[in-house]
């Protein structure tokens, strides 16, 4: 053994290397993929705080509103981010949302199925669609962009055709009454922490209705699911072997296969993930609106991908973060609702979304270069 190797191997504890302390905490922070999204979110809040601070945007009722939008987007953004880290795209998420909504509504209203069975049916269909997407991509080696673009059309068309065939129209209403005694539906449709808001209302800290009850009744179910999914996704990516496989599959597909990572299985499971996230989104929405509509979810996959990119995910795969995507969704949700509190024309929101994506990609590219050229 060389002299140098001997001296290093004899160091008792590698953590006591004095050079480690010189890498400042700030530098570690700058290397994290979430940085851009967190920074962006803070900026957005400061912006709207100054511009629209007293309009009611940050009242309890107003805040829950944009948090609800952010949370719903966040659910699909996190799934899209994990898939992107794994090296693939899913453009069929939006169509899956519409399809899942119909899978819940038609059996429940037209075939007389109990609501909870319809919901399970929708999730089962999601597994099938996700598996189909994944198998196609893995077996044919075609870019997932193309495969899922085809599914985007197939699913949306099927949704429209099947709905019109069975119902003669493009909407299926009447679901609200079914929620009440259903064993599962409450999980997707109930506000939580109601006691907190009642208490805040009694202390006159938040706005009240004419009958004395608080205007904001509770935390919407989307927010709870969103937080749970963010934590779960982060745990998977950072702490599990499967998470390492996701990074590896996206970072170097052939290399990963060569060292024994089951890249095919990983990718298929990620596609199932995006389809199920779309179904969760659809379930929450359908139960909230009390109806399903064939056009729901249109173009949502683009927003999900934008949020993931803003959150630090590289389009080429192998790098990114679920928390980043969560903050990306928060940014878009806040801005999309916040614009309505100002006198800015709402068409500018699309300009904002595109510009944010560009800025995020430039920023992420810069960060990535810094991360890989420290030496």
């Amino acid at each position: 053994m060389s002299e140098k190797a001997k001296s290093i191997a004899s160091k008792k504890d590698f953590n006591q290397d004095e050079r480690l302390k010189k890498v400042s905490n700030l530098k570690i922070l700058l290397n994290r993929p979430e940085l851009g999204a967190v920074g962006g979110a803070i900026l957005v809040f400061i912006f709207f705080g100054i511009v629209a601070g007293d309009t009611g945007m940050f009242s309890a009722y107003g805040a829950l509103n944009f948090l609800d939008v952010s949370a719903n987007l966040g659910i699909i953004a996190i799934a899209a981010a994990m898939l992107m880290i794994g090296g693939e795209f899913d453009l069929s998420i939006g169509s899956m949302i519409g399809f899942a909504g119909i899978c819940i509504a038609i059996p429940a209203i037209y075939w007389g199925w109990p609501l909870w069975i319809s919901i399970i049916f929708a999730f089962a269909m999601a597994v099938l669609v996700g598996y189909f997407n994944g198998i196609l991509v893995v077996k044919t080696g075609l870019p997932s962009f193309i495969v899922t673009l085809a599914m985007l059309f197939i699913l949306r068309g099927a949704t429209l055709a099947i709905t019109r065939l069975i119902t003669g129209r493009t909407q299926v209403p009447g679901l609200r009454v079914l929620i009440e005694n259903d064993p599962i539906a409450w999980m997707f449709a109930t506000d939580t922490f109601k006691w907190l808001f009642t208490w805040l209302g009694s202390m006159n800290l938040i706005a009240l209705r004419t009958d004395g009850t608080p205007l904001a009744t509770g935390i919407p179910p989307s927010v709870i699911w969103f937080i749970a999914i963010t934590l779960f996704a982060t745990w998977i990516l950072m702490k599990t072997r499967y998470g390492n496989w996701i990074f590896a599959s996206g970072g170097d597909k052939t290399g990963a296969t060569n060292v024994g990572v089951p890249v095919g299985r990983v990718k298929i499971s990620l596609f199932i993930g995006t389809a199920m996230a779309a179904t969760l989104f659809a379930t929450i929405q359908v139960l909230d609106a009390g109806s399903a509509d064939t056009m729901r979810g249109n173009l949502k996959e683009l927003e999900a991908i934008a949020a993931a990119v803003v959150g630090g995910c590289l389009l080429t795969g192998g790098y990114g973060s679920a928390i980043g995507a969560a903050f990306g969704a928060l940014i878009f949700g806040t801005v999309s609702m916040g614009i309505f509190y100002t006198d800015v024309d709402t068409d500018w929101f699309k300009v904002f979304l595109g510009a944010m994506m560009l800025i995020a990609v430039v920023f992420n590219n810069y960060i990535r270069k810094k991360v890989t050229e420290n030496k």
Partner: protein
Amino acid sequence: MKTIYKSILAFVAWVMLSVSAFAVDVIVVSHGQANDPFWSVAKNGVDTGCKDMGISCKYTAPATFDMVEMAKLIDNAVSQKPKGIVITLPDAAALGKSVKAAIAAGIPVISMNSGSDDFASLGISAHVGQTEFEAGVGGGEKMKAAGGKKALCVNHEVGNVALDRRCAGFKKGFGGSVDILGTSNDPTEIQSAVAAKLNGGYDTILTLGAGLAGEAALKALKSAGKVGDIRLGTFDMSPGMLKAAAAGEVEFLIDQQQYLQGYLPIAIFGQYMRYGTMPAGVVMTGPGFVTPDNAAKVIKWAAQGYR
């Protein structure tokens, strides 16, 4: 890299300085986008109303026909605590929760354009618009007065409750025999479907949409040389049909006068804010009839965005 950061910050600062947000008296949440030719007329009504009443208003709409987003916008509006909210009500089931929350928060709501059946059950104070059945009745009576005995009602979206009602009302007002022709919403298909019926002994044709069905039916009549033999009337307006009316080729256009649908709710709220007055029930803005007599003037106002 530094210059990019600096320019971004400068841009953000500029945006912050130029964007403003004030408390608004009346917020309008509509399902019709402001850049749509039909809805821009309604928005002009809103703007004129606000100026006339001396109050501040805001017109908002979701980017696409999305009831979920529209419900969010109503919630948005409620959080801004305006003096009144004006909405369209194309889907009472989806929007009901948000509307009820607005009313529970003590904000009065007026509906316009759609929802004449459901507004009362949600606690909405009044509805401003044209009820489909009654408009159909008006059209039917006019065609009857012109001497019609056998009519064809062209429905390009069977199952759309509003459209179905138009034909039903027309049948009641017309008195004679009325057949319903269901088509797709493809103009070529509508034209051929109508053309196929032209030898069926009809003397009257009513279409339920001007730009789509009306113009297609007119084309069918023209190529068969039956303009004038068969009387054509339509719901709603389009530049092509307006021109045809001015040329005497169309009996009438049923104008729901969406300018009033935008103006009147604002006027109502303006007076409500002063003296607490509120009409009860439905305030009908239509059917207004555009005939060869007044078509020229309507064309002028349509170009200005008021009809």
